[in-house]
């Protein structure tokens, strides 16, 4: 492990739990704990799992016109976001490509942002460079972020004294005291399960994580299970399923574009989004179910039955819930219909697969 890697406030906890640490986005992060990825994955679907996601970027936008300022960089309707509510949104480029996906919450007197770890420097620079004098961006580098995910997450929050958190609807946010520690909680996550993302001061992160892990329903889970869970849930990974070249239309993320924004066409990339909505995009993100057991990983070519190249797998692996391989990738719209037979070229061999709906495993959010 390189000394140059950054660590999260939970570094020593991970090591004491026996985590296998790997480099991710410049951080030493737990890939898995002794239980292993599959067992951590299953535990999250059955009970509740705690993930350290402190490598992600947290920030605050404060000042007159903060929502309007952020709307100059995203197609989301930020101004319509009510206090106590959070939204999933995209940062888009003028050419319609996706710069990152992020969460934005209205906390009354400020907006709270969570951006991807790999993009956080670029995102915060980008946002800061486009703010009017009345709006300030403050990075919250002194805060940790953990995710408690799974059907038992709500009961765990209650047992920690977080009744306000347990009462939140999906995408609700509130300040909550958990095990005596003040935290900012949103009812959201990246697993398809009900759950919470909990922002806490770095100095109190380990105490809070230990209090959560002390609950008999909770087990720690690493980045490996986080990735297999989000893949089953059909959620995009920035840098794999969405990037500078993919548009919100191609990625199936038009729902993140506010209605008002789609009438005004006043966001970066509006021209491309509008053209693709009117004439159809060049390609679409689809779910894929390979036959047999061989996983088709990111980069696997997708071919038509006659051998014509259609596109590539962008995320692929083995679904512990389905005990079968699953993948997402891009194909031309003519091949995007459910049930379309395609071939995945795995190690030079064409593997039959079918286009299927995503998510692969139904979401269980608390609506």
């Amino acid at each position, binding site marked *: 492990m390189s000394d140059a890697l950054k660590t999260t406030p939970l570094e020593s906890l991970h090591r004491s739990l026996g985590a296998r640490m790997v480099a991710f986005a410049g951080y030493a992060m737990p890939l898995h704990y002794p239980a292993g990825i*599959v067992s951590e994955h299953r535990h999250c679907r059955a009970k509740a799992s705690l993930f350290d996601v402190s490598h992600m970027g947290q920030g605050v936008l404060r000042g007159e016109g903060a929502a309007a300022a952020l709307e100059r960089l995203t197609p989301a309707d930020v101004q319509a976001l009510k206090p106590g509510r959070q939204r999933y949104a995209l940062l888009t480029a003028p050419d319609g490509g996706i710069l990152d996906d992020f969460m934005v919450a209205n906390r009354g007197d400020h907006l709270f942002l969570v951006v991807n770890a790999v993009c956080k420097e670029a995102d915060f620079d980008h946002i800061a460079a486009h703010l009017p004098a009345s709006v300030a961006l403050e990075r919250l580098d002194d805060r940790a972020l953990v995710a408690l995910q799974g059907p038992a997450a709500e009961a765990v929050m209650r047992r920690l004294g977080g009744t306000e958190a347990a009462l939140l609807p999906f995408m609700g946010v509130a300040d909550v005291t958990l095990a005596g520690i003040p935290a900012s909680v949103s009812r959201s996550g990246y697993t398809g399960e009900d759950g919470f993302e909990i922002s806490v001061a770095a100095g109190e992160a380990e105490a809070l994580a230990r209090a959560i892990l002390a609950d008999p329903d909770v087990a720690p889970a690493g980045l490996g299970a986080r990735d*297999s869970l989000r893949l089953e849930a059909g959620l995009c990974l920035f840098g794999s399923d969405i990037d500078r070249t993919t548009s919100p239309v191609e990625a199936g993320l038009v729902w993140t574009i506010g209605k008002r924004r789609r009438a005004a066409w006043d966001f970066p990339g509006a021209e491309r989004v509008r053209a693709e909505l009117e004439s159809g995009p060049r390609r679409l993100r689809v779910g894929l179910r390979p036959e047999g057991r061989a996983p088709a*990983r990111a980069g696997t070519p997708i071919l038509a039955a006659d051998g014509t190249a259609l596109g590539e797998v962008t995320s692929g692996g083995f679904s512990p819930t389905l005990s079968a391989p699953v993948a997402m990738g891009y194909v031309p719209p003519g091949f995007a219909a459910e049930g379309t037979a395609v071939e995945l070229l795995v190690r030079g061999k064409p593997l039959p697969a079918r286009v299927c709906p995503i998510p692969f495993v139904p979401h269980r959010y608390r609506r």
Partner: protein
Amino acid sequence: MSELRFTKDHEWVRFDGDVATVGITDHAQTALGDVVFVELPEVGRVVSAGEACAVVESVKAASDVYAPLAGRIVEVNTALADNPGLVNAEPTGEGWFFRIEPANPAEAEALMDETAYAAFLETL
């Protein structure tokens, strides 16, 4: 049954008469985690020493398995198709990958014995 020999790529070899059985080591299966798929070579394929001839996939990633010795593949472990978890459960037993008829059995002399492999693992 003879003792195991090991490669630096974490395969093991066990000679039984003229045929060598090959699998991946306990260290390798631990590092990989839950094995979800194994791709095995065709029976009859002639391989050279160090040639990638099988693939083992965990939830996270795919890894090549190399032929420890030159020779001809004479049998593969078809049980792994339905139960790849055998690689985790019994890496040096029921979780074997393939059997090879070595072109030159003396090649095995160059492989590590158990003590040497344990010492090698210490250096990683």
